[in-house]
C-alpha cells in the first residue's frame, strides 16, 4: 500500500479525456499511490446523448467501467487529478466547486489537465479548485499528451508526498 492517495476524476464523452485520466492515474500508481478512478455524470439529458451514437456508446462503456465520485473520495485523497475535455466542462467544474462542502481541502493538491492543454477548459477547473483551498499544479505541454499526463501523475504524487511528510 502506498502512502499517498490519488483521486482521479474526469469528464469525457468520447473517451479522449478518459485516456488522459487513465494515463495520469497510471503515473500516480508508478509513483506508488493508491488510486481511485471516477467519472462525473453528464449534465446533458438522455435524449441529447441518445442522438449521438458515439457518445452513447462510450457512455455505456464508461458507466460500466467507472462509478461517479463519492463524498468520501476527496476526503481520502492527498491529490485530486482532474481530467476534462477540450471544451470547458460544466460537469467537472461543478464537481470541483462542491469539494469544500465535503471536507477540508487544505493541503491537498489539485492537478487539472485537459485535452490539448486548452486554457479555456483548464481555467474554470483551476479557479474552482483554488477557491476550495486546493494547491493547483499545472500540467504543461508535452509532445505526447498521454505520456505527458502519465508523467504529470507521477509528479503530482511526489508533490503530495513531499507536502504530506514535510516536517
Amino acid at each position, binding site marked *: 500500500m502506498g502512502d499517498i492517495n490519488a483521486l482521479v476524476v474526469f469528464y469525457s464523452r468520447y473517451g479522449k479525456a478518459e485516456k488522459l485520466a487513465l494515463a495520469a492515474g497510471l503515473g500516480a*500508481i*508508478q509513483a*506508488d499511490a493508491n488510486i*481511485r478512478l471516477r467519472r462525473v455524470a453528464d449534465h446533458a439529458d438522455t435524449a441529447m446523448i441518445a442522438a449521438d451514437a458515439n457518445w452513447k456508446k462510450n457512455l455505456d462503456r464508461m458507466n*460500466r467501467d467507472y*462509478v461517479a465520485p463519492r463524498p468520501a473520495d476527496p476526503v481520502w485523497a492527498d491529490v485530486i487529478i482532474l481530467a476534462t475535455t477540450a471544451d470547458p466542462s460544466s460537469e467537472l467544474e461543478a464537481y470541483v466547486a462542491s469539494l469544500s462542502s465535503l471536507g477540508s481541502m487544505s493541503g491537498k493538491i489539485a492537478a487539472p489537465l485537459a485535452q490539448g492543454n486548452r486554457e479555456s477548459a483548464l481555467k474554470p477547473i483551476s479557479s474552482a479548485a483554488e477557491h476550495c483551498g486546493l494547491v493547483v499544479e499545472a500540467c504543461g505541454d508535452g509532445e505526447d499528451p498521454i505520456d505527458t499526463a502519465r508523467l504529470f501523475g507521477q509528479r503530482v504524487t511526489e508533490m503530495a508526498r513531499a507536502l504530506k511528510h514535510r516536517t
Partner: protein
Amino acid sequence: MLTLRKAEDRGKSDLGWLKSYHTFSFGGYSDPNHMGFRALRVLNDDRVAAGKGFGAHGHRDMEILSYVLEGKLAHKDSMGEEHVLGPNEVQAMSAGSGVIHSEFNGSETEATHFFQIWLIPQTRGIAPSYQQFAYDPSEKHGTLRLIAGPDKNTNPPSAFIHQDARMYAAVLGSGDTITYTIPKGRHAWVQGAAGEIDVNGMAIKEGDGLAVSDEASLTIRGSGAGGGELLLFDLA
C-alpha cells in the same frame, strides 16, 4: 505441520453483484493472523453476477493469477490487453511498475466463479506484462498440472511469474491418489476448489485451505462421492 483454514472461517464480502470469500486479508476484511502464507498474499474465491464486475482500478508490484471454475471473465488493461477467459484457461498479470485494469463477468446471462490469486513478486518495479493460455482439461485429471511458475517457455505451457513459487491444479476422482514431494525447506498451500479431497489424511472440502510446513510429501486423494478439484502452491 498441517494447518487447516476452514472455508467458513474465511472473510466474506457481499456487494449483491459480488460474493467473495477471502482466505487472507483483503479489502474490508482485515485479520492480522491471516495476511497471507509465504509469498501467497491473496486468495479470493469470487462469484460475480452476470454482466457485473470490477471497474477500472490500479495495481502495482503484484503477480495476479485468475483461475476460472465456471463462466467467463473479461479483462481489459492499460497495456492494451483485452481478453475473455473461461474454465481451463489461465490469466497471469504482472502489475510491476503499475497497471490499470477492469474485470467483468464476460456473460450477460450466467454467473462467473473464479479464484483470484496474488503473489508478492521477488522484485519491485518490473515492466508490467500479461499472459493467457488454455489447456486441455484432461491435463489436470489425476495429475498436478503446472499452471504458473518461475520458469519461462515450459512445455506444456504455463504462466511465468516473478517469484520462486509454483501453482498447480488437479481434478481427482474419488479414490484417485497423487503424491507431491516437497523439497526440503519449502512450504505448500493446498486450496480445495470443488468437491472433497484429503491431504495426508486430513479432509479438505471446497473452500478449505491447508498450510503445509516441515512436511516431506503430500498424499492427496479424491474423496466423497465425486472426488474434488484443488490448487497446490509450492512456496519458498
